[in-house]
């Protein structure tokens, strides 16, 4: 068990109560739903892709503080980035929460490191990575829904 106050940091709680890019994207080119049926976490990610660039991204939905903050931070981190950059961030993020002892590219993570505490809570890892899986599916062209269960 890790330190609870490290998991629920103020910035994370702030993302939870005031999520960024929490809006409907009218000109989205891809839309995907991420659903964790065990928790009831459910988010819709909308992305506007122009060639290989994520020019805009928004999300809607509900879930626990970890999943909502993670989704909010995801949108901030990948907006304006190319899809290959987004994949690299996905890999680094995934490694940070599932294999934190490995050699992680901290430069790629930026603010996402605030979520590193999740690795100490195995039951909550799925909450943190739900929207990241949805993002990857979405930009791989698989519009629809993705589940972490």
């Amino acid at each position, binding site marked *: *068990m890790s330190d609870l106050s490290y998991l*629920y940091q103020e910035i994370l709680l702030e993302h939870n109560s005031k999520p960024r890019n929490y809006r409907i994207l009218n000109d989205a080119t891809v839309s995907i739903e991420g659903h964790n049926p065990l928790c*009831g976490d459910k988010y819709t990610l909308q992305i506007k892709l122009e060639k290989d660039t994520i020019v805009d991204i928004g999300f809607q939905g509900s879930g626990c503080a*970890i999943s909502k903050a993670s989704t909010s931070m995801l949108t901030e981190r990948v907006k304006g980035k190319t899809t290959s950059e987004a994949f690299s961030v996905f890999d680094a993020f995934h490694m940070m929460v599932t294999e934190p002892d490995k050699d992680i590219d901290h430069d790629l993570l930026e603010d996402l490191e605030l979520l590193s505490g999740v690795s100490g809570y195995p039951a909550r890892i799925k909450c943190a990575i739900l929207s990241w899986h949805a993002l990857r599916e979405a930009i791989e062209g698989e519009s629809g829904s993705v589940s972490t269960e």
Partner: protein
Amino acid sequence: MTDGFKVNSIRKDFPILSQTVNGKPLVYLDNAATSQKPQCVIDSLSNYYQTVNSNVHRGVHTLSQLATDDYEAARSKIRSFINAGSDQEIIYTRGTTESINLVAYSFGVQNIRSGDEIIISGMEHHSNIVPWQLLCEQTGAVLRIIPITDSGELDINQYGALLSDKTKLVSVVHQSNALGTINSVKEITAMAHSLGAVVLVDGAQSAPHMKVDVQDIGCDFFAFSGHKLYGPTGIGVLYGKSEVLDNMVPYQSGGEMIKSVTFDKTIFNVLPHKFEAGTPDIAGAIGLGAAIDYVNDIGLDAINSYESELLAYGTAKLEQIASLRIIGTSSHKGAVLSFTLGDIHPHDIGTILDSEGIAIRTGHHCAQPVMERYGIPATARASMSFYNTKEEIDTLVTGIDRVLEVFS
């Protein structure tokens, strides 16, 4: 607290309760998911494997006979525990889920036809929904749902309106795992029987906490699990009236369930063995017998009245928390407190309480239609047992204060 209910000495019977979790004394409030095991149940398992381990109903040797005796003695204890008419009405299964599936696949496939109706309630566990949905898909029967009122009770008038001569089977939960509501299964059964429908009662949550008399209820089937009744996992029970079971086809086939086999014809064994194909969970059955002995020693009436006090105490305490909403407020309920806390997601509540050593269940409790009924994705659920204390409920309240502090 009830005079004479010696909870502190009872707690010593459960070795797991003296543990610390995350540096705090364990406060185990997830009894509706599974109960803890007293030392005598744990001992009965190791004793079986150390002294009599052998296959049942097969050997002429001494150990086989001893194992068979213990295995069948446990069946008699179960029969007496729920006041069934005879031992042959007690079928060992893996648990409540398998018991319900047995009825769906045997009785259901045999008797349910296109256009028939099956009635369940809006507060069922998925294990009492999905087998009937599959049966309906297979047979063309129609599933009808008894609605739930705002306080979390079944709407008996609506149930009466759903019943008709098309109704072939009614399957309802005795005590809701998500809401705690105790349903009037005797009345529900009588109403169904007046139209010739067969009744199954899901007793997974009731059997551990109240005196069950299947003959008084009058139901045709009663299903429950060993592990929620302080027994081992992997063992459960289906009670069925012998006249109903006699007419049913086997659910699984193989050894044990046959009387004779040739390549031309197989003659099935008598009840209950007809429904017990293969080597059963012998240790589990014996362990469940030990658990029933243990519960009987304390007494279900004493257990029930002590748990009712815990519920009243916990309800009063939780009601003092302004943003807390109890889901399931029937006046007739078991010691289950399902709640939401403002906008704070139950999983965050669960993680923070866990850091205080408090184990509760969070989520939809395998009862998604109940969550939908109340327009919520999930609840936090504290479910109590006779080894819990008022002090532990105070710890829960302090833990909830901590949750509110983190999210303030």
